[in-house]
């Protein structure tokens, strides 16, 4: 009897419902729920079939395909003799990489060995050959914490195998938990692991696959001894890691990415060095301390491989103590396994151990511990209550990233940060923790440099985009840098920092438009760098810094003499030209010596660009053009290379290029070459658009793009093409409008307001009334924000701007805004 498709759904639901009941309750359930007799009978029939069908179809027909696995994998049978010398005993372990069998070696020596069978999917010959090539190096390793690898070969089924020292131990993490080792005991054990890895590194062997299952602990003379297994295997089995096939190699060989270093996760990165092992040691340390992994692998495994690798490369894991505090559920258990309480454990990990772990887990190779020995040394320092070298992980690195995302907010916060650092530097001297203070200082310097360079992308304090926070910040940084610049020492390192500090002070003064002071600082920096350069003629960095100081001194002088500033010295322009000359001479030499170095090339281009502006200010159009052209020639290849890389750079050459094109466009226009100028302006726009696309968070690009459109609009105006000019203006406005992202800050409002004002000028465009209103509202909000944050100066500027905009706003908004204007002015007084 067939059931109709209409009733089938009902049958299915009742069948499922009935299965959930106990057998006795089923009839009652069906009586209650199945009104239709046909349906009930069908369900009853199926239930009866179900009773008989428990094994029916339970094995897939192509179970063979699965059963095949053993055959495919070429598993051993106990008792089997391999290569005439290994008698297979039993299967010990099975994992992502293959299986491990215990075997008895009969010749030439009688001993128990562990045979590791590698999963198929790779070229056995290659694996064995790679192992052979490393065999000599492996043989040189002799360390109590390293298990020996004796031999490699291939099974009859063609699978590669490795014969190695049999280590009947527990995974290091399991061992520690089983014996409830305290944090100190765990660290003692971990030190031995570091020592073993260091030993291998000295023999030029990198493990590449360190993880708890490769670090086993055995007890010898009642002492726990860690044994690292699988040395040399990773290279043999995934030596091809560096080429593109790693993608599949990953799945086959690695099984899990838990302990993989960021550089291993980067398919473009070919430089796997000993620091990769340091990273993996860091993960093991993390696990030993907290009982959890830095990244939540359960979550990670749900993601596509690309995303997993990206996270490993880019995301910062939480500090061990943070992770523990966040995982209340497991914290009690994990603390218990370490014979302590969760809160005590968190306190124990905070600071030193957090920092040590995070330094081992640094993404940036340069900031990671150089070797297991350094990592071990810091742990020893911790255990003996000495100050550790590690310090809060990569504050500056992270600050850099953060700044990139939220340029403005961070700058304000950094003001406070710098003050704190300045304090800690002065206090650090009295404290035994001098080392840490020094580390702080270096990080503070890095951070400050980054902040400065991000601020330095603006021209000067009168640049509408620089806000009061930034100015305050710069002023605070003077205090900071001055304390360093005062240093007079024959020590090269200190001398360098002092010279840099003078240069930085020059930058700050230049940005704050204190050109006289800027000039003095730069001259001081020049003297110091000249001395360093003479003492260390081989070090290009000093010549580079010297050239930069000359260039910036030129900049300060040029800006001073641009007609917008008071009392420039008479010879400012010719002095500026001389400074550029000096910079160019040094930079040209550096570029000639190292034509491949992009940085030298870019800096040389910039100085040409700067001098080009000076020359155009001086109406020396031909000379100016030749500087711009020179800059373009230098920048074009860099920009091409950059375009290929697809990633957003911090200081991209294409940005310089866009600016040069823009200025060359203006220059040619002013010389009457409208068409040619227009071409360059359009090029500038095209490049800048790419930058906006690549780095949309950096809104300055958008603002600049709008400026370029505006310039092009001028060019059309001059040609008498009002329609095209208008179109460019609209593009400019659209660009600005596009900047209204959710992250639009008051700084953005301000920039937008300024730009609009710039574009719209006096009230000639009635269609922009709505925008004027918006602009007015923006200024009101801005002024209020400044008041709220205690920046009267900023508020004054905003109110002034509001006053300028008012006449262009139409009624009734004009009256409303005028009222706000008066209230704000009152508040100002």
């Amino acid at each position: 009897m067939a059931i109709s498709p209409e009733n089938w759904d009902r049958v299915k639901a009742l069948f499922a419902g009935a299965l959930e009941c106990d057998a006795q309750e089923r009839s009652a359930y069906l009586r209650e729920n199945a009104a239709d007799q046909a349906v009930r009978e069908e369900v009853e029939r199926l239930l009866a079939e179900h009773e008989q069908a428990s094994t029916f179809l339970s094995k897939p027909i192509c179970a063979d395909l699965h059963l095949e696995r053993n055959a495919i994998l070429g598993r051993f049978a106990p008792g089997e003799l391999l290569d005439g010398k290994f008698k297979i005993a039993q299967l010990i372990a099975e994992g992502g990489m293959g299986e491990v069998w215990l075997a008895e070696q009969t010749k030439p020596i009688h001993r128990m060995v562990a045979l590791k069978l590698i999963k198929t999917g790779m070229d056995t010959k290659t694996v064995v050959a790679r192992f052979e090539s490393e065999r000599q190096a492996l043989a040189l390793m002799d360390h109590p914490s390293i298990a020996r690898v004796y031999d490699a070969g291939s099974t009859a089924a063609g699978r590669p195998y490795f014969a190695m020292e049999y280590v009947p131990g527990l995974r290091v993490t399991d061992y520690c938990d089983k014996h409830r080792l305290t944090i100190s005991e765990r660290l003692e054990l971990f030190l031995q692991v570091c020592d073993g890895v260091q030993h291998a590194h000295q023999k030029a062997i990198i493990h590449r696959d360190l993880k708890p299952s490769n670090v086993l602990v055995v007890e010898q003379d009642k002492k726990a001894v860690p044994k690292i297994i699988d040395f040399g295997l990773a290279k043999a089995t995934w030596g091809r890691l560096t080429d593109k096939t790693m993608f599949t190699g990953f799945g086959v060989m690695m099984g899990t990415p838990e302990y993989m270093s960021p550089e291993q996760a980067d398919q473009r990165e070919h430089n796997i060095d000993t620091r990769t092992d340091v990273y993996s040691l860091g993960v093991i340390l993390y696990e030993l301390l907290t009982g959890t992994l830095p990244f939540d692998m359960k979550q990670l495994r749900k993601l596509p491989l690309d995303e997993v690798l990206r996270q490993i490369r880019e995301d910062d894991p939480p500090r061990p103590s943070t992770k523990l505090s966040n995982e209340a559920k497991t914290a009690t258990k994990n603390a218990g396994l370490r014979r302590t309480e969760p809160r005590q454990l968190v306190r124990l990990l905070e600071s030193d151990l957090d920092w040590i772990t995070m330094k081992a887990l640094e993404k940036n190779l340069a900031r990671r511990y150089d070797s297991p020995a350094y990592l071990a040394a810091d742990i020893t320092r911790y255990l003996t209550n000495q100050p550790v070298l590690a310090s809060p992980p990569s504050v500056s690195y992270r600050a850099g990233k953060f700044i990139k995302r939220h340029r403005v907010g961070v700058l304000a916060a950094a003001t406070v940060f710098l003050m704190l650092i300045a304090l800690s530097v002065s206090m650090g001297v009295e404290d035994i923790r001098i080392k840490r203070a020094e580390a702080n200082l270096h990080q503070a310097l890095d951070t400050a440099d980054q902040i400065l360079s991000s601020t330095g992308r603006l021209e000067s304090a009168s640049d509408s985009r620089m806000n009061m926070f930034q100015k305050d910040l710069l002023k605070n940084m003077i205090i900071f840098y001055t304390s360093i610049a005062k240093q007079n020492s024959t020590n090269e390192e200190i001398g360098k920092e002092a010279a840099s500090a003078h240069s930085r002070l020059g930058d700050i003064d230049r940005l704050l438009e204190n050109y006289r002071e800027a000039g003095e600082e730069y001259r001081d920096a020049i003297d110091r760098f000249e001395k360093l350069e003479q003492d260390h003629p081989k070090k290009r960095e000093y010549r580079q810094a010297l050239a930069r100081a000359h260039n910036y001194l030129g900049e300060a002088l040029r800006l001073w003499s641009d007609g917008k500033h008071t009392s420039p010295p008479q010879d400012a322009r010719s002095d500026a030209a001389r400074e550029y000359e000096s910079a160019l001479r040094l930079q040209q030499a550096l570029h000639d010596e190292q034509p491949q170095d992009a940085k030298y090339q870019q800096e040389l281009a910039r100085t040409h660009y700067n001098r080009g502006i000076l020359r155009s200010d001086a109406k020396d159009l031909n000379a100016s053009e030749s500087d711009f052209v020179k800059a373009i020639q230098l920048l074009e290849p860099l920009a091409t290379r950059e375009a290929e890389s697809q990633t957003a750079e911090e200081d991209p050459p294409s940005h310089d290029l866009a600016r040069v094109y823009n200025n060359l466009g203006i220059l040619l226009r002013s010389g009457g070459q409208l068409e040619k100028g227009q071409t360059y302006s359009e090029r500038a726009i095209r490049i800048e658009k790419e930058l906006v696309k690549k780095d949309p968070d950096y809104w300055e690009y958008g603002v600049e793009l709008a400026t370029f459109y505006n310039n092009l609009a001028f060019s059309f105006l001059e040609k008498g093409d009002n329609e095209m000019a208008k179109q460019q203006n609209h593009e400019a406005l659209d660009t600005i409008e596009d900047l209204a992202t959710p992250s639009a800050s008051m700084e953005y409002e301000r920039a937008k307001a300024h730009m609009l004002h710039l574009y719209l000028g006096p009230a000639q465009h009635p269609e922009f009334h709505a925008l004027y209103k918006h602009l007015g509202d923006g200024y009101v909000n801005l002024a209020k924000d400044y008041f709220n944050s205690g920046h009267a100066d900023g508020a004054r500027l905003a109110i002034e701007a509001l006053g300028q905009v008012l006449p262009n706003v139409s009624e009734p908004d004009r009256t409303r805004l005028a009222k706000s204007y008066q209230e704000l002015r009152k508040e100002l007084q």
Partner: protein
Amino acid sequence: MEPSQADVTILLSELTRGNKEAVERLVPLVYDELKRLANCYMRRERPDHTLQATALVNEAYLKLVCQQSVNWQSRSHFFGIAAQLMRRILIDHARRHLRKKRGGAHEVVPLDEGLVFSPDQSAVLLRLDEALERLAKLDPRQSKIVELRFFGGLSVEEAAEFLGISPKTVKRDWSVAKAWLHGELRQQNGNLT
């Protein structure tokens, strides 16, 4: 041209990257091997043990199986396709087999554990196939689930992933379908006796 292991590797990696077209190109590469396995199965032989002679499908299969952590989806996708292929191959095989020995008596076949077929059980296989066709009319998803689980050897989770439904639904459908098919096949046997 002989398909190489490298081809499979490349296609698999493309599959893991989400390139669905890779499946289409992968199928012809592994089809022959599936066929060989099906033959072995029908003749009740063990497939040969030498790895060297193998085994694109093994290669493909192992690579996917080993990628436990990675891109589950493409793995079940691959097996979903393999299941369909396997069913087709086996049924074709069974048909040919029966045609050859036409006139022979129909046998009553025990529905024993795992429905282990012998070459003589081609008839049962065909009946199962026919029953599956009928089930497909009643409930296409259930029919597909049986194909995936029985012919493809997919786990509940893999089948769920392939069909984009919850494992719970797969489990439920699977038990209904099994009961229903059991009834269909038993009925036919009964009629024959």
